[in-house]
């Protein structure tokens, strides 16, 4: 293994052996390094592939599902919507600004290389406790700035996101970005080299030593010495990206670009083998034609460098100049590095000498690893943790809950983002759960990403299905029908059977929800090894689900400002499901209890019911209930509207024994609705027709949020609620509020 060590390889002995067998000879150093990058978990999905097959990928709108740079949906009238999710967790942990920014850059190129223009970004973030850790505050601050600077520079709005703080993310922050693009169906380009004789062209930045071993680095557990892992640091260059975006999209207009591939994890090696493998062809490249930032680079470094802002183009032979002109116009570097062959091999030459000739299929397809899954022993005892005593002063508890960073206003984050550039954003951050964007054919998409690490830690199956359900509720609440989803599965080391059990339960939960609700998966990402080697602690399981909804009109639900005198209704039954709730963990410091369960049959009825209520224009506003439960959702609605509410908790359909459970349970499948004048009874009738519990629980009035249950009364002044909710995060970050 001396040689492997010298090359800093992560390949196992078995993998090297299987490579030997496939080659029928000893692999050389270059081949080992290329295989190492490609067979990394990050590029190959070798542990996750068998389980990911459970996800349904076909549907009415789906043109292209998982396996490409982005999923593609038919949105009608000749237009397509592309969508993809990526993370940049490990780079962000050592360089939050550059790591987060290059993460945005990477996902934008995934959208661009389908031939579509990016129209919006969502970011989903996880950090340690910003209340106690200055390191986490530092990461949080610079990650947000990195996303903001890059998105703002390139001119793509960040329209929403989600964040959670939990101590298990202290040394492993998660930085996920979702990107959506729009284009014409006729302009779609795939990452495939199908035509022998076409030219392979490398465009964009120089290939350098920055980002060397990035993908194997992403697949290794972070250690103290990672801080020294300098060469994996990537430097963002948003202006170069903007030029690449414009030049690439223009070049597609020539009709000569027959394949496009963003260079990300695994660099040239990965990009070349993928376009050849997918296209059923081979490729041959000449390394002296690759523009380098340092002259003395070794072929290994050139092949696996993950330098940013680069793409591969496959251009019809004989038409290279027509395409080159466009790149020259934008000042984007351009070099013909090779051609498409018919031999199904990746051939790498340097000054004419063949350095390797290796089967594309072998490179692009790592041997599957079948991992063992084992249910953690403490799962049962955690679920059976006795419930804590009910606090005497629930008014104080409500205020404490609103001051938890997980619940408090996220304005500090989204006000740093430009969410309107492009003028397509109809519903903006903070206005509703989902962001809504106008499409060129005058339809609308609603997008939302959700995660809930606390639920998933205690019950990964229902936790993950619940995350999916929550994202759907947010999309439904603005009147859009969920048509597709993306998932991002983030876990610790998959060779740990307990970690792998949580992974497999999460995938099953998401797959069952997707199948039952008929919402296909069009793409996703798996990120393992999110754990700290020093403490041996893995992150809490963090599946993130992004849901895309389609709507013909959004006029019905543009505002969520309450009107004095409106009636408030609740849809759904509240159950004593407080396991993993913000109330248990944030107020009582208790990790345990029964996590909210997802009832698929109920969800089917709920989706139809909500869409009907919205399409008939019966509700003035709709808010889904999630983290912090009923009391938090109503408090947020009141704060945003500047008007109080009087709620009778006796009217809330529930199976709870205690007041705190009704107020703070995170049971799925619930909404609060503000009825339009005189529409209360129609909403109730529609809910009844779908067998969804629904009651009028109160009225919008005054300057207090008050809850009554018989003689018990909880009454908090709006002003007080608002100060707590709005100021928590700015104050923690040292800003005025």
């Amino acid at each position: 293994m001396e040689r492997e060590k010298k090359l800093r390889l992560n390949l196992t002995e078995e993998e090297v052996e299987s490579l030997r067998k496939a080659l029928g000879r000893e692999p050389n150093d270059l081949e080992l390094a290329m295989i190492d990058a490609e067979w990394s978990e990050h590029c190959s999905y070798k542990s996750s592939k068998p389980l990911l097959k459970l996800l349904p990928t076909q549907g009415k709108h789906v043109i292209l599902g998982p396996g490409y740079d982005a999923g593609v949906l038919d949105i009608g009238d000749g237009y397509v919507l592309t969508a993809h999710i990526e993370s940049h967790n490990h780079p962000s942990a050592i360089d939050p600004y550059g790591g987060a920014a290059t993460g945005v850059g990477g996902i934008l190129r995934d959208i661009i290389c389908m031939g579509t223009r990016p129209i919006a970004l969502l970011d989903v973030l996880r950090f340690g406790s910003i209340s106690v850790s200055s390191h986490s505050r530092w990461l949080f601050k610079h990650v947000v700035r990195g996303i903001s600077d890059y998105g703002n520079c390139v001119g793509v709005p960040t329209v929403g996101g989600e964040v959670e703080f939990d101590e298990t993310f202290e040394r492993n922050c998660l930085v996920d970005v979702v990107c959506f693009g729009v284009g014409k169906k006729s302009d779609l380009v795939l990452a495939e080299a199908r035509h022998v004789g076409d030219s392979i062209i490398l465009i964009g930045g120089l290939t350098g030593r920055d980002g060397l071993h990035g993908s194997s680095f992403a697949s290794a557990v972070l250690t103290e010495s990672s801080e020294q892992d300098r060469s994996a640091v990537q430097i963002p260059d948003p202006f170069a990206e903007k030029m690449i975006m414009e030049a690439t999209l223009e070049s597609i207009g020539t009709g000569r670009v027959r394949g496009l591939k963003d260079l990300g994890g695994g660099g040239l090696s990965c990009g070349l083998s993928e376009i050849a493998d997918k296209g059923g062809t081979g490729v041959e490249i000449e390394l002296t034609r690759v523009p380098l930032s340092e002259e003395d680079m070794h072929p290994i470094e050139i092949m696996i460098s993950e330098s940013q802002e680069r793409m591969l183009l496959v251009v019809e032979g004989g038409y290279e100049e027509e395409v080159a002109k466009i790149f020259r116009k934008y000042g984007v570097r351009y070099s013909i590095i090779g051609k498409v062959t018919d031999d199904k091999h990746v051939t790498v030459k340097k000054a004419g000498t063949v350095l390797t000739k290796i089967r594309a299929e072998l490179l692009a397809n790592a041997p599957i690893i079948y991992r063992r899954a084992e249910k953690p022993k403490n799962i049962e005892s955690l679920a059976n943790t006795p419930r804590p005593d009910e606090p005497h002063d629930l008014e104080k508890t409500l205020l404490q809950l609103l001051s938890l960073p997980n619940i408090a206003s996220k304005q500090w984050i989204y006000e740093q983002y430009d969410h309107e550039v492009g003028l397509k954003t109809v519903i903006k951050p903070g206005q509703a759960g989902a962001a809504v964007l106008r499409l060129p054919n005058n339809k609308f998409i609603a997008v939302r990403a959700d995660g809930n690490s606390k639920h998933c830690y205690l019950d990964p199956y229902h936790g993950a299905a619940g995350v999916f359900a929550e994202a759907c509720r947010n999309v439904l609440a603005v009147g859009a029908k969920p048509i597709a989803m993306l998932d991002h599965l983030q876990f610790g080391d998959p060779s740990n059977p307990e970690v792998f059990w949580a992974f497999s339960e999460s995938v099953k939960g998401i797959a069952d929800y997707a199948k039952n609700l008929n919402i296909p998966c069009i793409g996703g990402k798996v990120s393992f090894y999110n754990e700290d080697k020093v403490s041996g602690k893995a992150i809490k399981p963090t599946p993130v689900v992004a849901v895309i909804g389609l709507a013909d009109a959004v006029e019905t639900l543009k505002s969520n400002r309450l009107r004095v005198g409106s009636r408030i209704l609740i849809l759904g039954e509240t159950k004593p499901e407080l396991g993993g709730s913000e109330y248990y963990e944030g107020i009582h410091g208790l990790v345990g209890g029964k996590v909210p369960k997802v009832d698929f049959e109920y969800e089917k009825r709920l989706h139809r019911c909500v869409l009907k209520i919205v399409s008939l224009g019966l509700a003035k506003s709709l808010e889904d209930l999630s983290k912090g439960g009923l009391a938090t959702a109503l408090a947020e609605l009141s704060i945003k509207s500047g008007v109080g509410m009087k709620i009778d908790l006796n009217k809330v359909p529930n199976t709870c024994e205690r007041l705190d459970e009704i107020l703070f349970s995170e049971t799925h499948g619930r909404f609060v609705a503000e009825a339009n004048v005189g529409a209360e009874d129609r909403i109730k009738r529609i809910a009844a027709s779908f067998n969804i519990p629904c009651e009028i629980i109160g009225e919008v009035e005054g300057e207090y949020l008050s809850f009554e249950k018989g003689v018990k009364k909880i009454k908090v002044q709006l002003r007080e609620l608002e100060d707590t909710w709005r100021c928590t995060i700015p104050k923690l970050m040292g800003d005025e509020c």
Partner: protein
Amino acid sequence: MPQFNINVIIENKPTIRDPEGEVIMRDLMVKNGYTQIKGVRTAKLLKIVVEASSSQEAKQIVSKMCDELRIYNPVVSICSIEETGA
């Protein structure tokens, strides 16, 4: 106590790219005829006035501050500290 003028220069490590410098060189200089220019690197300069008993102590205070307050990210940048005249 005497005051000292300390300059802190923060720049990307030599092995790490500097897109800002590249753009300045390419689009402001070379494009406008100064083809002799072969490299530009940008940096951030902080001119700090410190009260301390000696120049040595002044530099130590600044160095400790830059590390502690994460004025630069040691993974990406190098930070050099020098005393200047006035």
